């Protein structure tokens, strides 16, 4: 251990600074990829982890979903959406049960010719008995602005790491700590 410390001292300030710079690059490129994906898919969060069992047996806790949200495409019944109601903390992954393509109000259409279709949606979890009206916090229908994206791809289990880190914060700190230490100590 002492020798390790000596070796660490020998590295000098320059090396430590370089390591910090490397570490920052890794974090920055991660962030860039995430935000870049967000721009490409038009979704604020293009990759989500399933947190509840309401879509079982298709999606279990810890599965990873890949989303897109093409702005000019309408949502269809059977699409699985991720939506976030204002006031609710957690985004919900449920399937679209009803779509109603209402025409936009006159004022809105003259002010901005948006290509985003106006739709009213009703959703339901495959594993739930009833639709989601109770989850809409007083709204009668889900609208386009509430929707984060449509599920396009599926990868099982991998997201469980984040759930484990949320449930056991010590794990998160331990992981971050060791990663940081390794990044600083590692030579070359």
């Amino acid at each position, binding site marked *: 251990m002492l020798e390790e410390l000596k070796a660490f001292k020998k590295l000098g300030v320059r090396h430590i600074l370089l390591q910090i710079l490397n570490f920052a690059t890794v974090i920055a490129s991660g962030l860039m990829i995430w935000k870049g994906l967000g721009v490409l898919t038009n979704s604020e969060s293009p990759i989500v982890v399933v947190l509840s069992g309401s879509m079982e047996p*298709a999606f279990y806790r810890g599965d990873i979903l890949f989303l897109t949200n093409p702005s000019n495409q309408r949502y269809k*019944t059977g699409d699985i959406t991720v939506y976030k109601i204002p006031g609710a903390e957690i985004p919900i992954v449920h399937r679209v049960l009803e779509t109603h393509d209402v025409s936009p109000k006159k004022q809105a259409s003259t002010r901005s010719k948006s290509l985003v279709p106006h739709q009213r949606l009703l959703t339901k979890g495959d594993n739930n008995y009833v639709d989601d009206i109770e989850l809409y916090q007083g709204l009668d229908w889900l609208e386009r602005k509430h929707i984060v994206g449509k599920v396009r791809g599926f*990868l099982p289990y991998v997201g469980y790491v984040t759930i484990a880190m949320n449930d056991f914060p010590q794990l998160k700190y331990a992981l971050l700590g060791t990663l940081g230490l390794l990044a600083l100590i590692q030579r070359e």
Partner: protein
Amino acid sequence: MHSILSRINNASAFLSSCMMALLLAISLSSFILTESPTGQVAISSIKVVSSHARRYSSKKQDLAFVHFNLTADLTPLFHWNTKQLFLYLEAEYENSKGVKNEVVIWDRIVRRKEDANIKFAGKNSYMFRDISTTFKNSASANYTLKYNIMPYVGLLTYGEAGKTTEEIAFPATQSRL
């Protein structure tokens, strides 16, 4: 450097890239293996009843009761990357205000190939109501049996297994069933 740490690092990196390649190959194989299924949808009767649907609104509104027969052979959709099918019957129509509607009135999750030969006769399991509270002057509706293949890994795909041969009109509203 041949420390234990770098060996572990190399081995796990190699394993995970092999794993990713394998998963990618499996998810791509779905496109080759999928064949299109066949099925029929027949509507036996429709009734529209004015009633209170307490769950949505305390006001009186029209509820449609649709009886139908489904037959479909969905076994070709099952291959090694099919986790389950989500099968649903959708009504598609335009109401008197020009709003285009798609409403799922029945669904079923199919998890095994043995259960994929669908024969069903019954009525809608979800409440079928219009956004304007009435089906009066609505255009006739198309009923389509659709499916969603949910894979073990990869992309979700959608398709159509059957459709009514002609559009079916909504009957006049009855005061009681």
